[in-house]
Every structure is written in C-alpha cells, then in structure tokens.
C-alpha cells in the first residue's frame, strides 16, 4: 500500500479559480518520488498555476495538495525549502555574474560556504559555464541563461525540482543540449523532476510518467508508452516488390483486415486488435510478392496527445 511518503506530489480535487476563469479543475494527481514527471498541455492549460499551487505561492480555491508530505496551504515555506524551481522566466539577476547569482541562492538556502563554492564550481563546469562565471548574466545567450537557471534550481540539492517549460524559446541545438543536461542531472542527483512542457518529443525522451492537462482538467496520466499504446491503431506497413492490385484485393478480403491500401510498393494495413500479421505475409509470398520489411506503426506521444485533445474537443463539442 502506498503512503504519502512514496509520493513527491499528491493532489486531490485541486481547483483554482481566477474570477470566472477556472485555471485548475478538480485536479487529482500522484507523482511518485524519484521520477521525471512531464505535465503536458497547450498554453493556458493550467500547468503554471499547478506549479504555483504546489509551491505554496497560490492557495487552491478547493481541494488540497501535499508536496513532499506538506500541505501546500499551511507549509509553503517548508515546501519551498526542499524544492527548486525554474519558473516561466529564468529569474536571473542580469546585472550580477553567474557566480553571484548562484551565490545568492546558495546563501538563501543556507548552503555552507565551503559547499557553496564546491557546488557552484561543479554545476557551472557541468553545464559548460565555468569560463564565463564572472560575466554579467545579461550578456549571455538565452540558452546559457536557461542552463544557469537549471543550475540554480538544483544548487541546494532539493528533493523536488519544478521546471516550467525549460526549453521554451531555445534553438534546436540548445534544446538538445539542455535536454541531455537535464536527463543526466535527474539520473545523477536522484531528484524528482516535475516538468511542464508542450514539447512532446522532449517529454517522450525525458519523462518516466506524463500527465496531460487541458482547461485545468487532467485528461490522462501514465507512462509515455502506456499513453502511446492507448492510441495504437493496429496499423502495419509492409514494404514489397511486385505488388499487384489483385493481391491487395486478396489481402483486403482476409479476416482481421479492416483496410488495405498500396502506394509505391508499400502495403498499409489496418488490422483488428489481436489479428496476426504472419498469415498475410505468407499470402503475399505465395502470390509471388517479394517482402522486404514488415513493421508495426506505433503511435507517438504526439498522436496520443493530439488524440486526447481531439477527444476533449468532441466532448466539448468544439475545437481548440
């Protein structure tokens, strides 16, 4: 039986209204400790509001949440003491150097002088920023600032780190670099990471579990694989040589085949769940077709996400 000690975050019926706008709508969510959790959703879905409530910066209108075992309404300071955060903006003091920015946060979290020095050196080296540690941060590129903001968020070795759109606005090279850094950091530091993003490939590569939110409501939660599996269509692609229309018609007539179409020698099949592929391949070979490759078409997290968004639109009777 799991207890609140097994979870970094537990939210139950969490609701937050801003006047007539409901930013969070009865959000119920458990985030186990030690994982990278991705909170996915379009702009305005409620991701940032959720982080603000979890950090005790905003009180919920209804429901409640516990972060690291502390009630967010009553123990905001205790939560913030054990968490790190990179919020919507890097939040760096641009007149100060990188070393001073980290020094300030180290002091704020009561990291001892010796440990601060070691940790600042370690993190700046890890992110490739050590050589420019004395430059004012205002002179840095956006990618460097984001890296520094991540370093600041983990400086005091928090148990839980909130990263709100950490790769937002970065060029592809910086995005890949920061993603690799985050991945390594999560593995090495053993920290729980709560990451919001609308970059689905990022979530797929980084996250152990993801939750999909829209309009403040949690639409789905699970591993990226389980979300993908929920959208698997049973599609199979067979790359061939010598495929004729009458063979396609034969395939189409087979039990378990919902549809079959051919284009440039590629036969695309939609099979009923559990229908085997092997008899179809045998049929093709018997008909003199050269089969080069058979592959199952797997749904991506993007397919799953867009599917959920579509379902939500259908339920609401409207579009985005």
């Amino acid at each position, binding site marked *: 039986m799991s207890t609140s000690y097994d979870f970094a975050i537990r939210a139950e019926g969490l609701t937050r209204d*801003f006047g007539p706008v409901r930013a969070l709508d009865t959000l119920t969510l458990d985030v186990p400790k030690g994982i990278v959790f991705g909170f996915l959703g379009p702009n305005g879905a409620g991701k940032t509001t959720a982080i603000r409530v979890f950090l005790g910066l905003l009180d919920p209108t209804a429901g409640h949440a516990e972060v690291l075992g502390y009630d967010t309404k009553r123990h905001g300071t205790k939560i913030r003491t054990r968490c790190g955060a990179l919020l919507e903006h890097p939040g760096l003091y641009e007149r100060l150097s990188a070393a001073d920015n980290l020094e300030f946060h180290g002091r704020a979290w009561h990291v001892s002088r010796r440990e601060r020095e070691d940790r600042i050196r370690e993190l700046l080296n890890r992110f490739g920023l050590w050589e420019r540690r004395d430059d004012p941060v205002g002179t840095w590129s956006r990618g460097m600032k984001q890296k520094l903001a991540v370093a600041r968020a983990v400086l005091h070795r928090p148990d839980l780190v909130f990263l709100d759109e950490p790769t937002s606005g970065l060029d592809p090279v910086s995005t890949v670099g920061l993603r690799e850094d985050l991945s390594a950091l999560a593995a090495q530091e053993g920290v729980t990471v709560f990451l919001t993003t609308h970059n689905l490939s990022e979530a797929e590569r980084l996250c152990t579990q993801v939750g999909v939110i829209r309009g403040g409501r949690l639409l789905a939660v699970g591993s990226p694989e389980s979300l993908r599996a929920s959208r698997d269509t049973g599609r199979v692609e067979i790359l061939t040589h010598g495929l004729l229309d009458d063979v396609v018609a034969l395939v189409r007539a087979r039990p378990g085949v919902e549809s079959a179409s051919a284009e440039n020698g590629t036969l695309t099949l939609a099979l009923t769940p559990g229908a085997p592929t092997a008899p179809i391949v045998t049929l093709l070979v018997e008909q003199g077709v050269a089969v080069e490759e058979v592959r199952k078409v797997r749904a991506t997290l993007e397919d799953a996400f867009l599917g959920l968004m579509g379902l939500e639109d259908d339920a609401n009777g409207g579009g985005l």
Partner: protein
Amino acid sequence: MIRDASTVVWKEWREFRDQLLSLRRGGLSALILALILGVVAPVQLGPDWVRSKIIVAYWPFLAATMVSSLIADSVAGERERHTLETLLASRLSDSSIVIGKIVAAVLYGVGFAVVNLAIGLVAVNIAHSQSAPILFTVQRLSATLVLTLLASLLMAGIGVFISLRASTVKQAQQAFGIAIIVLTMGPLLAYNALSYDTRLRIVTRLAALGETRIELYAVAGLTLLSVIVIAGALARFRRGKLVLD
C-alpha cells in the same frame, strides 16, 4: 530572519555596486554628487560647514534623497525584470525580503552621508587649517546620524510600500514622487495656510523648546512614521497577490 535578511542585503548591494561601478548607469552622478557635497561645499563654507545647526536637517534630507533614487526599483524592478516570482519561490520569508530590501537602501543612504561627512571634514581641515582641528560636536553629530538613519528608514519604507504594488519601475517612481511631494510640501502648505498669529505662536513655541528637544521630537516622529510604514509594507507583502501582479 536576520541571516535571510542579510542575504537579501548582500544581493541588493551586489546590484548597487555593479550600478555604481558603471559610470553610465549612475556611478558618474554619484561621483559628481560626492565631489560637490564632500569636497566643494565644505571647502567653500569652511568651518561653518561643520558648525552650522542646519546639518542636522541637511544630511538626513540628502540621505533620504539618495535612498529615494533607488528604492522605487526594489520590488517593481524585480517584477519588471522577471526575477520576482523566482524570489518568491525561494525559501526566504516575506519579512526577510522586505526588511532586507529596506536595510540595503538605508545602508546606502546612511553610507553616502557618513562618507561625505568624513570627506568633508578632512577637506575643511585641509583647506581651512587652524591651530585646533575643526570637529563636529558630539551631540550634533549624534543627532545628525540618528536623524539620517531614521529619514533613510522612512524613505525606504515608503519606497518599498509603493514599489510592492507598482507594475513597473516608472510607475513606482511616479507614485513615489507624488508621495514625497505630499509629505514635504503638505506640511509647508498647511503651515502657510495658518493665520499669521498662529504661525508666530508655533515659531515661538519651537524656539522655546530648544535644539535638543526639537531633535528628540523629530526622532520620535520619524521613528513612529517608519514603524507604521514598514508595518504597512510587511502587511502588503502577500506572495499569492505578488505572484499574480
């Protein structure tokens, strides 16, 4: 709380330092002001610069002016530069952030006054050397320093109070400017609106009080006002509200 407030002071001072070291961003004007107040004025006025009663009001006013030049930036600047939410997400308590920002500004104002007083004293003694060194009396120096501290504290408290709700530094500076005009011009206008007899009575009463009593009343008044304003700033500092502004 003291440790956390001193961390905020450390950060604020790092920012002031970088601002002052940059001639373009304010260092030049501070340098010119220091030259005029710390060297030119003492050399021109000579021993009167040290002995005049006016220094008890002059230095607190100057220190408060120096505080006012930067305090509007304290919270509104963090908001404008998108550092406020990160600061609020830190483990620093509300009071340590407010007190830290006030103390940093007060140290700046008092530091400016003390440095200029010291430079001025040296300048007077070099330019107008006499058989005995020209020095402030202990009472006048003590009164000047205490009033400088309290005037800076009041100004910093008002600045933080206003800056908490301003969405930009410019807006904070405008609101702060209006508040200062009301605070300084208000009593003067009210005084001038009184009848001649009433004004005469007030002046006579003040003159009868003597220098020490007037200074003590000023200390009490500034202390009371500072406490009220700082308590107001602490009450106004609400994370849930600030994070949404």
